[in-house]
């Protein structure tokens, strides 16, 4: 998107995004009431990720912007996963050996 000719999305699209987000909120509530066993949290996160992606792509205009903006938007989340994964690899493996590092 350029400063001179911004991509202007139709109002209908914004309303559609809004409806999707509200539906997602109800869905996540409904999922929480069902017993999916260990799947409850992954499902809740999946819905949240979908909702967040919709916000990023449409409300935040990333869909119409340069690849670099997409890379930037993704980078933060990827780095968050690094923080989580490498911290958790400690916590999940503490009981593997009877001694502590």
């Amino acid at each position, binding site marked *: 998107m350029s400063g001179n000719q911004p991509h202007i999305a139709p109002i209908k699209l914004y309303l559609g995004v809004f409806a999707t987000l509200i539906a997602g909120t109800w869905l996540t509530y409904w999922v929480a009431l069902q017993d999916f066993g260990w799947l409850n949290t992954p499902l809740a996160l999946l819905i949240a990720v979908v909702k967040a992606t919709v916000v990023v792509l449409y409300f935040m205009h990333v869909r119409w912007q340069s690849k670099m903006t997409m890379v930037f938007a993704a980078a933060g989340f990827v*780095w968050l996963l*690094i923080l989580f994964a*490498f911290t958790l*690899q400690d916590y999940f*493996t*503490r009981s593997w*050996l009877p001694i502590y*590092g």
Partner: protein
Amino acid sequence: MSSTVAPHAAAPRPDLPATDGHAVEPRENYLNVDYGWKSWLLSTDHKRIAVMYLITIMFMILVGGSFAILLRLELATPAGDLLQSETYNKIFTMHGVVMVFFFLIPGIPAVLGNFLVPIMIGAKDLAFPKINLLSYYIFLAGITLTLIAVAMGGVDTGWTFYTPYSSTYANSQVALAAIAVFVTGFSSILTGLNFIVTVHKMRAPGMTWFRLPLFIWAQYATSLIIMLGTPVIAITVALVGLERLFHIGIFDPTYGGDPVLFQHMFWFYSHPAVYIMILPAMGVMSELVTAFSKKRVFGYHIMAFSTLAIAVIGFFVWGHHLFVSGQSTYAGVMFSVITMLVAVPSAIKVFNWVSTMYRGDVWLTTPMCFAIAFLGLFTVGGLTGIFLGAMGFDIHVHDTYFVVAHFHYVMVGGMVTAFFGGIHFWWPKMFGRMYPENMGRISAAIIFIGFNLTFFPQFILGYMGMPRRYHFYPEEWQVLNVLSTAGATLLGTGYLLPMIYLPWSLKFGKVASKNPWGAKGLEWQIDSPPTTFNFDKVPIVTEEAYAYPEGSRHQREAEVV
């Protein structure tokens, strides 16, 4: 980049008032364009902000350095006579906090980076000049808070603020120091953000990514680490502050909180932070070594990629600080192995600098003396880093002077040496004056000797088991400690010399030409000191970086024979 559109021919520019009558008067530049406090304190010119940072950071070196002198004086004798244990704890904490957060991290980016990033890529300013000024004032606010914390009694937790001591037990100004670190973090985030956008969006026509000077690559990679890491330390110290103020229990084992989680979150930033300190220094090194060997850098692409590799791999190794903290053995092994990997790109850089010098036209100016000192000191620091990354060895020397010596070799021997080398190299560009060359060489030599005398004995002390952070020690270690203290005195003298002769040269130094070193790079094609907007005309870049003539002097001579 000699074939860029030369901004200034010898003839005076038509758009400026003729200066024929006043040949002595230098032409208008960023220093003399206007005068008065306001024109500096409210300036959004990246060069003026760099100068303000330089002055502030020099002040912080003096503060942190005086703490270091006190520590070494105390350690000259085995008994705790000069400082009592509590005071000693506060002094080493404040030495660490001041040096890490107010010198090592901002040092090269905020001073040399601010000054050079726009010029080296052919831009008039950073992308967000006002944010740049804001970041300076946030930095000042952080310093002010730290100094208030010192005045109110100081902090005694060590610069790492380990919980639960910092959050529950310490009786010192931890909350205030935590706020100071939090605030300072914002300053470096804003600088990093500015650099990233500037490098992406403000490059002159023809300045492609692979024509960027390696200094710019280093600043870019550093900025990435700042953006991705600093917020985590911000929230971590904020949690420590909340824990202290409201006892919410997040890192308190009595509520089930895990102090090791603090260490994970702290080192997620603070280990990459050592690359925030050393990567810009490596960028400076690449500039110095090429300029004074009159040769293209050996392996430009691999140098650029190794910069990025260090930045990325640096995020996966933080657990090597937790080998004895109760981290799982499996995690320890993982972190240990990845730590070995990060040595590879660092070593590539050292090899490439040496290869650049090999058969080059080496000119032993002061900056080059600092660069050669860097090569030696950083290699020792880096290699002992591999020792420490090996889990088994680390358990033996953990929290001893071996660790202290290692990180001083990397930080002081690496970053500070490169910082001084860079300051000397670009001094003529920044202020339009030459520094006294022989004094410079002398100070470089004193620093190199003083540094090794200070810190090499500490490797031995640490290997023998002398723990860090104690103000007394058994008598059999006195000889090595006295050597170290004597070295520190020499080192301090070495650092004081430039702080005297550099300001002296502002008035008495020889007037510098545009390119006193005959170096390549856009910054050497504009005036010394530069005008406010750096370039009169947007430069068009047609060459890669360091386009020195092929073949060294010796080869050329050989061809003649």
